């Protein structure tokens, strides 16, 4: 399996795990692993990540469940906007998380779900993209990169990975935007918003994209506003709005704005 091959020395061979699990009914939810009978495997502990242990840990794995990330295509490329809050239950673990992962100078990935899952697999994707470049002497397309990621995580389907990411870039067919998640979905589209605040973000972006041609400035403002509104209404999103623009030369980090500052700015504009 991909994980075992990267981490040569220490990890257990999970290939038996995968084969056994295919036969089970897929009635397992995301957070529950529930590996009851794993036969002669040395790892025979039933691991329950749901917090049912008596004196055990409350929440071992910090999942970035609360988040708002969005990306949309427009005339001049792709705008990617994200918040920066990470929560562990109701505790805000961090307000300064980098939810946009720079895969390479012309590909970006966003992070929603498990922070470690997203950053690990996207870092692995960066390595695969580089290998592709070396082998084929040309840049990898967004479709191919997103397919590599989707196939990597599909092998772990049902094992509890939590990852909802958007792969954004510019290749020879123009701007590219794909949504990939740990369930095995891979969808091409013009607009995606992922996370607990996604509904609020969709509202803003859908109404803003009604006018056909946006300038870069207008598109950035739209992305920023959408994330701001989502942080306003969603308790699990907040911190700062990080904005990136992907164009033919690659990606540019446009801005990082604190949500409190944006709030004051928009209030002043209203007056």
């Amino acid at each position, binding site marked *: 399996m991909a994980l075992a091959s990267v981490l040569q020395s220490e990890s257990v061979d999970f290939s038996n795990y995968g084969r056994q699990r295919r036969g089970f009914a897929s009635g397992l939810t995301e957070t529950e692993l529930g590996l009851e009978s794993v036969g002669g495997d040395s790892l025979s502990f*039933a691991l329950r990540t749901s917090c049912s242990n*008596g004196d055990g840990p409350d929440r071992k794995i910090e999942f970035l469940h609360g988040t708002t990330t969005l990306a949309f295509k427009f005339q001049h490329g792709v705008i990617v906007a994200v918040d920066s809050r990470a929560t562990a239950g109701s505790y805000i673990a961090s307000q300064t*998380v980098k939810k946009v992962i720079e895969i390479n100078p012309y590909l970006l990935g966003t992070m929603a779900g*498990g922070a470690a899952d997203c950053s*690990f697999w996207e870092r692995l994707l960066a390595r695969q993209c580089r290998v592709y470049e070396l082998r084929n002497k040309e840049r990898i397309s967004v479709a191919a990169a997103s397919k590599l990621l989707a196939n990597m995580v599909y092998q772990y389907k049902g094992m509890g*990975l939590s990852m909802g990411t958007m792969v954004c870039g510019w290749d020879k067919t123009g701007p590219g935007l794909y949504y990939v998640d740990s369930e095995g979905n891979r969808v091409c589209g013009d607009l995606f918003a992922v996370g607990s605040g996604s509904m609020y973000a969709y509202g803003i972006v859908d109404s803003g994209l009604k006018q056909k041609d946006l300038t870069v400035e207008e598109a950035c403002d739209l992305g920023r506003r959408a994330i701001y509104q989502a942080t306003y209404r969603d308790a699990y999103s907040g911190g700062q709005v990080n904005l990136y623009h992907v164009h033919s030369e690659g990606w540019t980090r446009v801005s990082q704005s604190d949500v409190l500052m944006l709030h004051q700015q928009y209030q002043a504009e209203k007056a």
Partner: protein
Amino acid sequence: IMFTTQVYGDNGKMKEYHYTGPVEHRFSPYSFNGGTVLAVAGEDFAIVASDTRLSEGYSIHSRDSPKCYKLTNTTVIGCSGFHGDCLTLTKIIDARLKMYKHSNNKSMTSGAIAAMLSTILYGRRFFPYYVYNIIGGLDEEGKGAVYSFDPVGSYQRDTYKAGGSASAMLQPLLDNQIGYKNMEGVQHLPLNQEKAVQLVKDVFISAAERDVYTGDALRICIVTKEGIKEETVPLRKD
């Protein structure tokens, strides 16, 4: 395993403190040993501090079990959570540091150790190390660096971070005193070493007041380009 729940008696008042019905027992490979860790990065120094209490359930196993481990001359790691995994993890990190030194003829930098730890932790994604790690040290430019992790390897560089059982109590205080959050019209003074050490001591004294798993003593490791200095300060023993 004592499962404590409220039980209501016939007269409506709360009854006994212990649940006495049937309980399913199963072996858990984890246990929670408590402890709090804190790291602060300054302009040319880094501080990693931890309490020294090792507990389990209602008992204290040891009053002298610090949670800071020296990795290199410029890096210290603080590990809290399940003590068994803390020990194994630090052994693995030490081994990997040695391997790197032998292959590359130089010590690992703080940033490199952080990246390596992330992959070590993710390697056990499906049976995690139950450890909350915080690395404190100097980066290649000599500036203070703090890296905080979650149990499965997600990490980021911070200026300050608290981890472990009293983290939710310490982090807001640090946000205010070091990050100047939620303060208007206050001058943002850069943090100097003496102020930082005093702040760390005060913050742990507060944590020991309100968190049962934190107390006994405080071990502070100060990392500067001169090396690593250790200081021990007593805390509440109750």
